[in-house]
């Protein structure tokens, strides 16, 4: 078999890295369908994401130690295991099996990503360019994940995400044809702590943008996964655009700091949305996507810069990023669910007031209230907010239409406000990342 040209090898290695790192967020838009299919609690559902990210975080450094000695072998074996685990996820008979297979994906994915860094160094014949490509692939993969997952879920079902992953992952094996890589010596330096801590905090903050925002779009504002997927492509587009200009921002710590500020600002804006509606998410998404492109690439390159044994240091960055995602999921999920519980009562009270104060016939109010409560109960079973306009506003009477609008407004306010604290806490996490970024600015000159 003819060995691949270096450019094709780079593209395939980038695809492998992006594919694995997209997997941390790719099932987000499929979660409502998975919840219904396996009939699990919302708090349990988060383990479909946590298991993958936790396994990836824990396995990244050990996998990198192994990949340092046998990068080709580790990349080949882990790619096959990742593909098999992905394929099996599509046929999970129970939620427990899905969670276990996601953990296998995480371990194998960690090995794919860190081994790919060593292979990139070999193919590009330079550690700096390898680190740049590797970081870019990670940024694009992580930010594209929700959008791709949403589109696939809507068009072909959530299982298609995993069925498509398997052959795409196996494509990466073509890289190995005719490739010889020398074992990499053990790294002499300790991990770059400041950059990795900053990566952890920024990744924790991004959980709100990559996970909670899509839940708000689908479950809160009733968008279909395809539409939600298209809406959140704003972030990866902004991230890709930002990485194109990122190199011109020097010194690199200012690039990371600018990114963290933009991420925090975008998240704070999502926490203070003035109205429900996709249009209000556009500017915050542009800020977050731009910040993501600047911060993740700058911090990853900083963690790898001037260090021998890049795979091991790459492993530390992967561990930090995915530990941050786990931290974000575990920190934000209870805040978000308590916000939903609190606002469920507030929305019921406000909705009741809207019915009582409406201009519809007094005796009809009892029936309308009952119809709305039935719709709310039914929608809760599907983990969605009901379309109360359809329940109330079908009559040919402006009083009913006004009541439908008033009830929908209260529901939109309640669900949007329920996410507010989670977005604001994640904005705070993003701001906290400024501390290690500023403290570590003199550690490495990139």
């Amino acid at each position, binding site marked *: 078999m003819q060995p691949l040209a270096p450019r094709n090898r780079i593209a395939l290695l980038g695809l492998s890295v992006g594919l694995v790192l997209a997997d941390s967020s790719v099932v987000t838009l499929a979660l409502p369908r998975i919840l219904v299919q396996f009939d699990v609690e919302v708090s349990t559902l988060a383990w479909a994401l946590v298991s993958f990210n936790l396994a990836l975080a824990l396995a990244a450094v050990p996998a990198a130690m192994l990949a340092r000695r046998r990068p080709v072998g580790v990349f080949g074996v882990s790619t096959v295991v990742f593909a098999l685990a992905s394929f099996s996820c599509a046929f999970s008979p129970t939620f427990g099996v899905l969670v276990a297979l996601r953990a296998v994906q995480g371990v194998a994915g960690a090995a794919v990503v860190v081994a790919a860094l060593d292979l990139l160094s070999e193919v590009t014949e330079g550690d700096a360019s390898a680190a740049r490509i590797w970081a870019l692939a990670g940024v694009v993969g992580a930010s594209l994940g929700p959008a791709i997952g949403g589109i696939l879920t809507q068009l072909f079902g959530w299982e298609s995400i995993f069925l498509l992953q398997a052959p795409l992952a196996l494509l990466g094996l073509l890289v190995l044809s005719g490739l010889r890589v020398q074992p990499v010596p053990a790294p002499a330096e300790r991990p770059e702590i400041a950059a990795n801590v900053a990566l952890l905090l920024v990744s924790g903050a991004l959980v709100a943008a990559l996970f909670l925002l899509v839940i708000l779009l689908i479950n809160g504002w009733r968008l279909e996964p395809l539409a939600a997927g298209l809406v959140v492509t704003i972030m990866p587009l902004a991230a890709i655009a930002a990485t194109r200009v990122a190199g011109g921002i020097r010194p690199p710590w200012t690039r990371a700091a600018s990114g963290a500020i933009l991420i925090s600002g975008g998240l704070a804006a999502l926490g203070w949305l003035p109205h429900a509606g996709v249009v*209000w998410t556009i500017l915050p998404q542009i800020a977050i996507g731009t910040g993501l492109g600047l911060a993740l690439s700058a911090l990853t390159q900083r963690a790898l810069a001037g260090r021998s044994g890049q795979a091991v240091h790459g492993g530390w960055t992967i561990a930090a990023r995915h530990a941050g995602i786990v931290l974000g999921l575990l920190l934000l999920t209870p805040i978000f669910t308590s916000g939903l519980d609190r606002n469920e009562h507030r929305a019921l009270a*406000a909705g*009741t007031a809207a019915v009582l104060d409406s201009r519809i016939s007094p005796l009809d109010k009892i029936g309308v209230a009952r119809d709305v409560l039935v719709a709310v109960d039914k929608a809760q079973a599907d983990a969605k907010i009901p379309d109360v306009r359809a329940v109330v506003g079908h009559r040919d009477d402006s009083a009913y239409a006004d009541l439908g609008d008033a009830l929908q407004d209260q529901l939109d306010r309640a669900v949007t406000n329920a996410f507010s604290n989670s977005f604001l806490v994640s904005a705070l996490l993003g701001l906290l990342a400024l501390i290690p970024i500023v403290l570590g600015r003199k550690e490495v000159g990139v």
Partner: protein
Amino acid sequence: MRAIAFSIAAVLVLVGLYLGLGGASYAPAKVADPCVTRSWRSPHGFEAVAEQIVLSSVDGAACHLHVSREDMVLALANADTRQQFVREHHITNAELESLVRNGLKRSIADAQNAGALNSTVAGILRGVVGNIPIDELLNLLQRLRGF
């Protein structure tokens, strides 16, 4: 450093814009205090008068129990919600019924004083409210919707 200054400026504009448009107060509407007397409207028709009487009585009971009028209405929706409400507020079913019944009698008197009910209708209503069980009263209201 210019990048940091630009990022801070962009974020301040974005967050300032969203806060200026009411982002900090975009939440479900607060419900009215049931202890604040609502002005007696001049409703037309028996349905509207009856509604005002019922709501006024619910206000009174809600004020007594330090809950909102809306919480009281939701509590009275069916037997299950009523049981949950009495458990949460450490009262008995009889106490809840008594509160609603007394509130209704007081509201009928208010309606009569405001000229919304004549003395004959007010008397009949007082008799109904004083004797009919609360479950029957609520069922009656729901059945009336069919007419």
